[in-house]
Every structure is written in structure tokens, then in C-alpha cells.
């Protein structure tokens, strides 16, 4: 009798464990945390990034999720934290994420937050004298040049503005050999637009254009009559504006008022979004902007639909977020990350290693190369504002 009882207990117990085990295995989740600005004028970036993360997670989960190091499958869940585009808060948010079981994070939106954040990370892996944080972070939106090289734990999936404007200027030169002069406009007090203008100017000169001058203004300026008048006097063939939608629209409206009509208008990458079209579609007609996202491939179209489903819109920034989630799936599977509470430190190291070892990742517009500086070389194309929407003007072959 006792032996029978023991046997029954064992079978029941074993069955229960098996069921529990199976249930547990089916419920494994990996939480990916993103962070960025969901307050202030840059709120739209945070909203889009979050939507892109959720859209990508759903796509990945539909195909079964991600395979962990022990062979089990896990689904992605997404959390997004708001850093209000504030360096102190960004650092606080990352410390919060690093105090949990997370082994990687996506963010931030603002370049100034990224500067501070990457600065508190350990500079060189294995440097015992450096007490910096050891946690891999990959940025989807912060676009100021050269940020990823601040630390070996910082990565980025943002397009190289140097490459994009080099290609754009070169293409314009070949398409319009009669155009010789260019005049620039720059939003001086914002890190991104300021730095990118340097790139635009250098690439224009490198391609044989003569820079007749530059007009400057500030991020929240409201009147541009003086600057546009200088532009008018210079009467250049091409005008390049490195500014975000608010001041870009302000300048374009003033140009319209003063009758300044350059043969070609070039804009800043970040301004190739619906914001510009909502603010000044009429005056922005014809502006050419290089971007690393447009719904031209089947993957891109699908991604755009998915992101819209989650309340965001797909543009070059949120597309980068979407691509990063897939990058994570690849690295987790490659590096056999366990994603358990007791393997956190090892997982973080594996994640960093995996991201650093990537030579190529698949993006929505094609293959993305990765540099030793932990930056991305993304395929890009030129879009033009036409009839109130962004239409693809040219896809460079290289």
C-alpha cells in the first residue's frame, strides 16, 4: 500500500511539476526598456519610439519570440520611461533600469542626455580603475555626431549625416551642374542642428559649391526677417537649412514673404517628418532631405503600418528603434543570453560583446553596416516634400 501511495504521489507530483514547468516555460518574458523624451516639444519622439518598440515586439512575438540560451522561447515585453530630455533624469532612469534585471536599454531621444549618460558608463571594458556603470545602451534617436565612441558600452543605430549630406551634395552637383552657390541657415543653440550644419557646409564645399554665407537663429526664435534678407541679398542657387521644424517653417514662411526662391532647398534630417508638413506644407514644397527611412520596401511599409497601430508614426527615428528590437533578438540568440535573475551581469557583458561584434544588421531599407566606433552605416535616400507628403526623390545606389 505504502509503495503504491508513494508511486501515485510520485506520478502526480511529477505530472504537476511537468505541467508547472511547461506553464513556466510558456510564460517566459524578456522585458526591454526604452527611455526618451515624452515631455515638452520633443514628446512626439518618445511617443514614436515607444510605439515602434511595441510594434517590433509584437512582430517578434508573433513568430514565437526569442530563443534564450537554455533553449526556451521568451516573448518580448516593452516598457518606456520618460526622461523629459533632462540629463539628470536620464541618468536616474538608466540607474533605475540597471538596478533591475534588464541587460540592455534603448535610448535616449536627446543628444544632450546621451552625452551625460554615455559619460557615466565605463569607458573601456575591463578597466578596473574605472568605476563607470557597466550596462550596454543603444541610442535610437540622439543624432549628434560621434556620441557612441564615448564609451565601449554605448552604441547607436542612427544614420551618418556625414555620408548622407556628402551623397546629397554630390548628387545635386551631377543633376544640376549649372548650380554653383549655396547659402546656409542654422539653428545655432541646438547641438544637433549646429553640428549638422558644419557637416552640410563641409560637404557643400567638398563638392565644389561656393558657400556665400550663413544666417543664424535660435531654437525658439520667432522672427527671421533679418536673416532671410541676408539670404535674399546673397541670391544663392541653393539654400540649406539646418533647423528643426518650428524654425524651419518660420524661415520658409519668411522666405515666401520676401520672395526668396532658391532653385534647390535642402533641410535637416530630423525635419523630414510630419511636423514640418503640418506647420508649413505650402512653403516647404520642394525641400529635399536625406533620410534613412521611407515606406519604400515591403518591410518598411509593414513597419509603418504596425507603428501606426500603436499610436506612433514611422520616421527615420522610430524606424531605428524598430530595427534595434530585431538586432536584440539576433544578439540574444547568438550570444545565448539566459535572461535570468542570476545571470544579469553575464548577460550584460554578452549583450555588449554581441552588439560590438556585429558587422552588419538588417534594416528596413536594406543592410546596415556597423563601424568599430559602434555607430551605424545606414542606407538612405532623398525625399522631397510634394503636395503635402514626403515622396522619394532618389535612392542612391551605393
Amino acid at each position, binding site marked *: 500500500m505504502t509503495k503504491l501511495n508513494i508511486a501515485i504521489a510520485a506520478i502526480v507530483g511529477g505530472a504537476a511539476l511537468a505541467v508547472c514547468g511547461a506553464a513556466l516555460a510558456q510564460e517566459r518574458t524578456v522585458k526591454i526598456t526604452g527611455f526618451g523624451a515624452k515631455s515638452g516639444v520633443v514628446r512626439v519622439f518618445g511617443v514614436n519610439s515607444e510605439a515602434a518598440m511595441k510594434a517590433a515586439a509584437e512582430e517578434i512575438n508573433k513568430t514565437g519570440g526569442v530563443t534564450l540560451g537554455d533553449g526556451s522561447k521568451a516573448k518580448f515585453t516593452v516598457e518606456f520611461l520618460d526622461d523629459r530630455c533632462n*540629463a539628470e533624469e536620464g*541618468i*536616474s532612469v538608466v540607474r*533605475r533600469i540597471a*538596478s533591475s534585471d534588464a541587460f540592455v536599454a534603448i535610448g535616449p531621444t536627446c543628444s544632450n542626455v546621451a552625452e551625460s549618460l554615455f*559619460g*557615466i558608463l565605463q569607458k573601456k571594458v575591463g578597466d578596473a580603475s574605472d568605476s563607470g556603470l557597466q550596462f550596454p545602451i543603444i541610442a535610437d534617436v540622439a543624432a549628434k555626431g560621434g556620441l557612441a565612441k564615448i564609451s565601449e558600452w554605448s552604441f547607436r543605430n542612427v544614420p551618418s549625416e556625414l555620408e548622407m549630406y556628402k551623397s546629397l551634395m554630390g548628387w545635386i552637383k551631377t543633376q544640376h551642374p549649372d548650380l554653383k552657390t549655396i547659402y546656409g541657415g542654422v539653428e545655432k543653440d541646438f*547641438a544637433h542642428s*549646429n553640428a549638422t550644419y558644419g557637416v552640410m557646409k563641409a560637404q557643400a564645399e567638398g563638392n565644389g559649391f561656393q558657400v556665400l554665407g550663413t544666417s543664424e537663429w535660435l531654437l525658439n526664435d520667432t522672427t527671421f526677417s533679418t536673416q532671410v534678407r541676408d539670404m535674399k541679398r546673397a541670391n544663392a542657387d541653393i539654400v540649406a537649412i539646418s533647423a528643426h521644424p518650428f524654425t524651419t517653417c518660420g524661415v520658409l514662411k519668411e522666405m515666401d514673404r520676401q520672395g526668396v526662391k532658391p532653385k534647390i532647398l535642402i533641410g535637416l534630417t530630423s525635419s523630414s517628418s510630419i511636423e514640418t508638413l503640418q506647420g508649413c506644407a505650402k512653403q516647404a514644397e520642394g525641400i529635399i532631405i536625406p533620410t534613412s527611412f521611407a515606406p519604400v520596401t515591403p518591410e518598411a511599409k509593414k513597419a509603418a503600418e504596425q507603428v501606426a497601430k500603436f499610436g506612433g508614426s514611422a520616421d527615420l527615428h522610430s524606424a531605428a528603434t524598430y530595427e534595434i528590437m530585431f538586432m536584440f533578438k539576433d544578439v540574444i540568440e547568438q550570444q545565448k543570453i539566459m535572461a535570468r535573475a542570476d545571470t544579469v551581469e553575464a548577460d550584460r557583458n554578452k549583450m555588449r560583446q554581441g552588439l560590438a561584434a556585429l558587422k552588419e544588421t538588417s534594416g528596413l531599407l536594406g543592410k546596415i553596416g556597423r563601424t568599430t566606433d559602434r555607430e551605424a552605416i545606414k542606407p538612405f535616400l532623398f525625399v522631397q516634400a510634394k503636395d503635402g507628403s514626403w515622396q522619394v526623390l532618389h535612392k542612391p545606389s551605393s
Partner: protein
Amino acid sequence: MDFYLGLLQVIGVHTLLGLSAYCVLLTGQVSLAQAGFFAIGAYVAGIFTVLAHWPLVPALGASAVVTGAVACAVGFPALRVKGLMLVVATIAFGEAVRLFFFNFTYQVQTGTLHLGPHGAEGFRQIRYFPEHGWSTFDVMLFIWTVVAVVMAALWWLDSSRAGAVLRAVGEDELAAQSSGISVTAVKVSAMTIGGVIAGIGGGIFAHYTTHIEHTQFGVGLAAFAIAYPILGGLSNVFGTLLAVIFIQGFLIEGLRFMGDWRNLLFGGLIVLAMNIRPRGLLDAGAVQALKRLLFSNRERSGA
């Protein structure tokens, strides 16, 4: 754990910012210039540790000296401006300081790297803490040692005659002057002390964020600086500390679970707090009530 230590760091530095405004507020001057002094302290300390390779404490000392000098210089013209015009004047001063740093470039080349403040791009790589192996706990301890010293100094000042003189000028300038108090000396000293505290706070700020730029030191930060002592109450230094914990700990980090609503609640709760407790969270009435609570217990247990 790291997260809580980091939060304590932020609370500490913001307490210094709040205390600098508190000092000036005691004499009845509403100063929105503290963010400007904070900025000067940040840049000066950064320049000394990064470009001149000074250790941290002397660099903070340099910040204190420079900011104190600037604050003293600001204190004199501030005398001519009363009440709400001082608010505007100090906002303008803060903006002027910010614009100065917007234009300020001083780069030194070491090897292939360019170090130093670079105008609109800011001052990057102020990595004194990680480079010297300071852990989050070490930094937190350092910050709170400074905060404790400053709070103790202010508490001692408050309980001495100097504190009474400061508050007398704050309550009724005419009466104070009639009693023979040199209002000029008191107001300028308060502004200088406030400047020194803000300078030290700014110096530490630069080091724990590793990157500073002009946009961080705008009217927003100045508003926070003045919010802490007003919200906390002017009776004693702990009010400011309480307000910093309330804003940074509760409103900013604690309410994170509310997601998008957090930011709306931020402004809303400040308005509510001012309506319910216009003299601050820890005003004179609250302090008396606390004292009675604490000391009456002790009496009872003693007897």
C-alpha cells in the same frame, strides 16, 4: 541600490541649489539668479579638474571663490531693485550668464582630443568620478557631507544673532535699518553666501552629469531653485530639504508609475501645495507642532 544612491546624489545637489536660494530669500530678496551661479560653479570646477587636472576639492573651492565674487558683484546693483523687479532682473542675469556660456569656447588639445567648453555644444567628458574610481556610494557620501556641512553652517547662522539680523531685514527693511542694521551689508552678504553655495553645488553637478551645456542652466532651473525654499517654508533649512525630497523624490521619480500623468500632476501638485500651505510645507506652525510632539513625548517618558 545604485538607483537610490543616484537619487540621493540628485537630492543632495538640488538641496544645495535650494539652500542658495533660501539664503537670499531670508533677506526678502527673490532671486532667480541662482541657476546662473550654479552654471558658473559648474564650468569653473569642470575647467579646473579637466583642463588643469586639479583634484576635486580645490576645484570646488575655486568654484566657490569665483561664484562668490560674482554674487557679491551682483548683490550691490540688486540693492537698487526692489521686490518683483528684482525677480525680472535676476531672471535677466541668469539668462545673461547662460548666453555667455552659449558663446564660451575654450578648448585645449591633449593628443587627439579637444577638451574644454565648446560654445553651444557644451563641456563634455568631465569624468573625474569614474576616472578616479569613485563608486556611486562614494559620490553620494561626498555630496551629503558637503550638504551636511552647509546645512549645519546655515543652522548655526540661523540660531545666532546673524540669523536674526537676516530675518529682520527680510521681514521689515525699514524697521531693521532704523535699528541700526546695515541693510546693504546684510543683503550683499546673503547674496554672496547664496552664490558660494550655488557655486559648490554647480561644481558637483558638472561632475556627476559629466557633460554640461548652456540649456541646462535656464529659467527652468532657476524656477526649481526658488521653488525648493518657497515650497519647503522659510522657517529652517529642513524645509528646503523636505521640498527637494518632495519634488525630486516623489513628484519626479515616485510618480513615474503614473506614466504620462506625471508631468501634469507636477504642476498641479505645486499649485495645490501653495493653496493648502502658502507658507510652505515646514512653516513655523508645523515646526512648533513637531517640537511639541517630539519634546512632550520625551518629557513624558522622562517623568
